[in-house]
């Protein structure tokens, strides 16, 4: 430690400080370092961030529940006399709400035991009890899957546009026109059984593609910002649906109600678990959409162009890919997928058009795609999760009186927390992972610095949340060396200046420059004691090779 501090404080030549640290550290210290390195890796890991994001989101959700609960507020009126009452009330209101959420989303334990008891009372035993009881218990899970189906398809569409660097906020509009087209074909045309379904699905897909294509055309031809044009198209589609549901073509005989007739049986997606459950064959389409997303983005030429334009439009133009044509194609493909989601929703779940047919799927799909980091597996998992939260939330609303909006808040908070890993680490007291100088001691700090200099300030996980996951999951060693780069260079509070420039290039010239500058210009916002571990690049840099090998081992 002292050897590291010395070079700057005595303002000696950089070579002296580096020389004193040239010798490899003793073996026991190395072992300790490795242990600490592992701990750091865990602390920096994405899994921890994801888990903690959920915990924080649910904690904030509990705060909202508590504020909204009248009983809790009553107990607070005599808080000083009997504080235990207040805590009991808080605990009860929160656990009941979340318990109901779980019961509504995954497994209905109460329903399970009730059916089992009934059957036992009627004299059943063995599988005669188990199967119907399980069916009752798992009903919420099938509901979750049903809700997840359109969400995953729509999120796959969103993911396509996000990967191409386009922010398609027009999920709602594309979903509505897809549902309108599919519904119209479904209840007016008269076609053979399989053909009808396929044509209805295709109609929804095409309608969504056209709606997305409008935004794409405006972007490609006039350079209109797709965020605004897709949002405007959302409203236009919404009012178009309202209008359509007032015309005879869409309402059929009963023109007073703003609902369409039911989809004819030949166009309905078949039920998977019999008529008692809503789960339908759209689930396979959802799986197909995820596979399509993977194939399109990772295996096809078109997807390569999409990604190329997304990461660097100028470079892709040089390479012969037209960004404006690509923008049009991206929004058409994305709109088509979202339109398909609308078709699946109306042909499988709703079976008729209503004014609120799209619900919040369009916007939820955005958050699902963001949470899933626009990858196929992520989209499926995030879609299932969000569907579970919203079906559970619906049950919570009906049984506990906690509004469904709580679920929306929790979903959004999860996305926000996951988008900013440094925030989560700060909240759980692992701030020093991002700010090595504040809590780290000696070698750990230097090692982090060495890692950071090797990657020149790659701010991968903070600039785009879709990138960070892919880099860190595929190659853990590179991730562990890339993260400190981000954290050290990137996550200082906005006012302060990262002294010691961890993002500086690791070449000797840069090192000299840094070492010369540091003593001569002691910057006002970094006290010397605090800056000592940070201004260690000379020592750290020399150790760089050994560190790199150590990491890989």
């Amino acid at each position, binding site marked *: 430690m002292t050897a590291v501090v010395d070079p700057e404080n005595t303002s000696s030549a950089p070579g002296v400080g580096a020389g004193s640290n040239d010798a490899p550290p003793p073996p026991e210290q190395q072992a300790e370092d490795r242990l600490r390195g592992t701990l750091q890796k865990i602390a920096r890991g994405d899994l921890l961030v994801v888990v903690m994001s959920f915990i924080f989101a649910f904690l904030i959700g509990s705060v*909202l529940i508590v*504020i*909204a*609960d*009248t009983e809790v507020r009553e107990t607070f009126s005599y808080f000083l006399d009997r504080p235990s009452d207040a805590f009991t009330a808080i605990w009860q209101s929160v656990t009941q709400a979340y318990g109901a959420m779980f019961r509504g989303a995954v497994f209905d334990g109460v329903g399970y035991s009730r059916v089992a008891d009934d059957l036992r009372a009627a004299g059943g035993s063995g599988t005669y009890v188990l199967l119907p009881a399980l069916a009752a218990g798992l009903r919420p899970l099938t509901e979750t899957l049903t809700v997840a189906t359109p969400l995953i398809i729509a999120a796959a569409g969103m993911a396509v546009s996000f990967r191409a660097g386009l*922010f398609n*906020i027009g999920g709602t509009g594309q979903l509505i026109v897809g549902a309108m087209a599919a519904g119209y074909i479904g209840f007016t045309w008269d076609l053979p059984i399989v053909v009808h379904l396929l044509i209805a699905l295709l109609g929804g897909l095409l309608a969504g593609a056209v709606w997305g294509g409008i935004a794409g055309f*405006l972007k490609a031809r*006039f*350079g*209109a*910002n797709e*965020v*605004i*044009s897709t*949002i*405007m*198209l*959302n*409203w*236009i589609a919404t*009012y*178009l649906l*309202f*209008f359509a549901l*007032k015309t005879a073509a869409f309402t059929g005989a009963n023109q007073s109600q703003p609902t369409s007739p039911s989809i004819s049986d030949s166009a309905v997606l078949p039920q998977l678990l019999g008529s008692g459950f809503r789960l339908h064959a759209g689930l396979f389409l959802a799986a197909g959409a995820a596979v399509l997303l993977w194939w399109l983005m990772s295996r096809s030429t078109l997807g390569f162009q999409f990604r190329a334009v997304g990461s660097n439009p100028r470079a892709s133009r040089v390479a012969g890919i037209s960004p404006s044509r690509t923008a049009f194609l991206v929004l058409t493909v994305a709109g088509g997928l979202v339109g398909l989601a609308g078709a699946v929703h109306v042909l499988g779940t709703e079976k008729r058009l209503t004014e609120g047919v799209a619900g919040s799927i369009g*916007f939820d799909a*955005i*958050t699902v795609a*963001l949470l899933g980091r626009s990858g196929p597996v992520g989209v499926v998992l995030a879609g299932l999760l969000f569907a579970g939260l919203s079906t559970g939330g619906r049950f919570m609303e009906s049984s506990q009186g*906690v*509004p469904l*909006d*709580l679920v*929306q*808040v929790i979903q*959004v*908070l999860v996305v*926000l927390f996951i*988008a*900013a890993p*440094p*925030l989560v680490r700060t909240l759980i007291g692992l701030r020093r992972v991002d700010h090595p100088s504040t809590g780290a001691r000696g070698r750990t700090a230097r090692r982090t610095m060495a890692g950071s200099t090797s990657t020149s*300030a790659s*701010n991968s996980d*903070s*600039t*785009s*949340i879709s990138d960070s996951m892919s880099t860190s999951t595929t190659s853990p060693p590179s991730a562990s060396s890339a993260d400190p780069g981000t954290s050290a*260079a*990137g*996550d200082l*509070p*906005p*006012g302060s*200046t*990262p002294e010691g*420039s961890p*993002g*500086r290039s690791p070449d000797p010239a840069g090192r000299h420059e840094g070492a010369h500058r540091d003593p001569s210009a002691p910057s006002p916002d970094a006290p010397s004691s605090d800056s000592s571990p940070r201004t260690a690049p000379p020592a750290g840099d020399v150790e760089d090779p050994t560190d790199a090998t150590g990491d890989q081992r």
Partner: protein
Amino acid sequence: MTATPTVAPDDSEVQKKVTDERPDSWWHLPLTTTVLGLIALVFFGLRGVPGAESSFALAREGDLNPLGLIPERITVPSIGGAVALAVIALAASAALWVLHARAARPRPAARLGLIAVFAVSWILAFMTWVISERALDVATLLQGTLALAVPLAFGALSGVLSERAGVINIAIEGQLLFGAFGAALVGSLAGSAWVGLIAAPIMALVMGALLAMFAVGYRVQQIIVGVVLNVLAIGVTSFFFGTVMRQNPGQFNSPLRLPTLRIPVLADIPVIGRVLFEQNILVYLMWIIVAGLTIALFRTRWGLRVRAVGEHPRAADTVGIPVNRTRWINVMLGSAVAGLGGATLTIGTGVAFGEEMSAGKGYIALAAMILGRYHPVGALLAALTFAFADSLQLRLGTMSAAEGGVSIPGDFLLMLPYVVALFAVAGVVGRVRVPAANGVPYVKQ
């Protein structure tokens, strides 16, 4: 130039060549106006309701109207009026053709003037057609326009403030919603709309702080943060609306209204008097903030620094301007302004808070800001345009109940502001110069 004197011996020639180059798309604008003018001529004029009359109510009893200078109402035959106006519009577009064909780069003043003539006559033709057999109170229409423009203008100003400093502000919707929520909640608790007026910007600061924290502090993609924060705002306000406010609306969500401040003599001027000088304090505040912000952004040291941070943060940093602090401050200021816009929705119009009551106004404000070229005055004008579409929609919606005449389905009228915004953004945005560092987080080296 000095290096290659043989190629271009004279500077002026080069200059001339550059200016003479006609943009490929020069015919877009005249063609569009011609097509629109023909539509007006055929649909509004020739295919109008035969024998119907359209009347516009202007002055009122008791207005300051010497010698009846402004008539109480103007009544014109629907078809004749619409045809005449459509012909004027077509003449304007013909002039545009001539203007563009003669000079490669026509004088902007002449061009804008012709466009204005076209727009006004086209809209009047449309109105003459649509109000056949009925009367339209122009002052009420304009008053509604201004009232509806206020939240849009405040939202757009919020956008101007933060985007000029380089932070994309999609979260205007959330800021409006939080402002509306804060005004209603705190105002009701205190029992005074004035307290609500103070609470609205403070509440909206929460949104601003979150936006700044994630976009500036943690450098998350700014559009993502904005969209997600909007959903968060809807979620949080709807949650409290569904629980606390619904349980006890009297205590937490009562409809309060800021008093209308009438400026004595000026308010008696026919038509525009009531529009400009009989409004609540938020409208007057809007004028003040637009003027103040224009001066501050373009005439003060602060404004120069803000724009430097938005255009070239590295250069700004080099000369000692704290980039991220400037961005923080501007995002916070912007959200406070948007909070005032939110207050317009509740205490400004005298209604209680409702779920998702901003209803996409934040996004239209965003479009207004872009249409207004990131300039406060431009943003105000764009907001007024959208608000006019909205106000017309409202007037026509209420008038449709009357007998006879042309009726447009209400849903298409509701679509109107969004369609206008879509076309405006598509048509104008190509010529808007976005602050160079907009949306790019600044990493200090």
